[in-house]
């Protein structure tokens, strides 16, 4: 390996270090047996134990998981069917639909948050579970559509024609031919939606009320009060859940 090659790898490593070092430090300190100091005092599960002993926190975690599961499922149902339709049909207003999806994806989170807040306020909907769910479905849909669309473009249109020629209705074609072929992308879209929903701070901040607390907002209010080993542990768990879902989603998308 020559010197130039070495310098190139060093640069890559440096950036990867920048991306991963803070996360690694967070994870390592969540196991450190010391409340305040940075000094390494040995391995402990204490902080994780403290989290488990906090019933409020467990309820909050359950709330988050519930919203993430429901919003990912509804968004995947709407998004996957819509992606198939966008790919297969020409229809009136298609450019407008594509533009709306794109704008929805690019809209800064804070703008989406207040826009939905104004919508819910003008409908006099009380902020809580339902408003949060509607908001999360909204920001998940475009990600599902994009994930599924990128997979459809790659497959053989003759399969769909064959199904139609053999007398299948559009619904039967969707369920028995298209869906099995798209299954990896659909599952990946669901997993990515789940992580988006689990991690969202900005939109949720505006559209949920005190009646329904979720994990990211809980972490946000805890962090503002200071750094504690319990937050390290909680953040490590959040990272663990997200990481495993992304890795599964990516491996599904990579398969031929």
């Amino acid at each position, binding site marked *: 390996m020559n010197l130039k090659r070495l310098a190139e790898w060093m640069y890559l490593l440096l950036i990867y270090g920048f991306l991963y070092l803070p996360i690694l430090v967070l994870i390592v*300190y969540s196991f450190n047996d010391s409340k305040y100091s940075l000094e390494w005092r040995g391995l402990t599960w204490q902080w994780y134990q403290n989290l488990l002993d906090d019933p409020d926190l467990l309820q909050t975690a359950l709330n988050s998981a519930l919203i993430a599961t429901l919003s990912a499922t509804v968004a995947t149902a709407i998004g996957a069917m819509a992606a198939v339709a966008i790919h297969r049909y020409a229809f009136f207003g298609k450019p407008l639909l594509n533009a709306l999806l794109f704008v929805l994806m690019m809209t*800064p989170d804070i703008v989406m948050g*207040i826009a939905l807040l*104004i919508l819910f306020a003008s409908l006099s909907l009380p902020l809580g579970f339902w408003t949060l769910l509607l908001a999360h479905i909204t920001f998940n849909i475009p990600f599902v559509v994009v994930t599924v669309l990128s997979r459809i473009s790659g497959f053989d249109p003759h399969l769909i024609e064959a199904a139609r020629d053999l007398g299948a209705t559009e619904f039967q074609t969707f369920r028995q031919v298209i869906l099995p072929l798209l299954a990896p992308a659909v599952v990946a879209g669901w997993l990515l939606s789940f992580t988006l929903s689990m991690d969202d701070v900005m939109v949720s901040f505006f559209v949920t009320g005190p009646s329904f607390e979720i994990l990211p907002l809980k972490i946000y209010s805890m962090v503002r009060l200071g750094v504690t080993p319990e937050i390290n542990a909680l953040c490590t768990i959040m990272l663990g859940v997200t990481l495993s879902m*992304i890795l599964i989603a990516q491996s599904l998308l990579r398969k031929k």
Partner: protein
Amino acid sequence: MTIKEPFKLIAMGGLWFWLIAFALLPNLLVIIASVLERGADEFVVFAFTLDSYRRLLDPLYLGVLLDSLQLSAITTAFCLLLGYPFAYLLTRMPERWRPLLLLLVIVPFWTSSLVRTYAITILLKTNGLLNQALLGLGVIVEPLELLYTPLAVIAGMAYTLLPFMILPLYGSLEKLDRRLIEAARDLGAGRLTTFRRIILPLTLPGIIAGGMLTFLPGLGMFYVADLLGGAKTMLVGNLIRDQFLSARDWPFGAAISVMLTLLMGLLLWAYYRSSRRASRGILP
């Protein structure tokens, strides 16, 4: 194919309904709210006024807007400077390594930016790892005040947004036709000229897309300013949030976010223009 097909109706109907009800309508309501008067008991009073837009020019708020634009611009420039060579090197790596190297960029892209911002606070604390390391190395004698500075906000934003810059850059660098570079070199262009006249214009869509994905979220990330900047740094995001939470001035908050949306429109327009040019092979 007839319109009576129930699948098409349900698939399209569902998406249309959702986008109109929860994307188009809310944004129209924001525009409407921004030209209404602020109410004492209600959030808005139905009377037309451009007061909220006039207040954007108030030196107090204008200062916050400009500061925030500046912080975001610096963050974007920093990400571009770090990310461009990185994305370029990624495209030059051996084929079998690339999926793994790319995955390592994608993973932070999807993880919680709140958690990652929090991780930065651990590093930057007065008795944090960075200060300890610098003290240990003898670079400094006293711990530096790193947290609660504009610099910490920039570092935090750059850290959470870097993958958003790298991924579009990688996308456009990967599509780059290497024969064009060789042709330029064969015709006698130096390295710098080749970069400036060939590589840069052809990867401009990636640069603009990456810039958009770092610059716009950078303006809104109120929790980064809260956690890393203390009360000293205000972003557009903090200003908007305060209008809806503490100040209860919804029309003004709506007006600021209309400005953000217009800015997004401007950047999108720049992106379309540059990508159409790049795909037709016309260099500016």
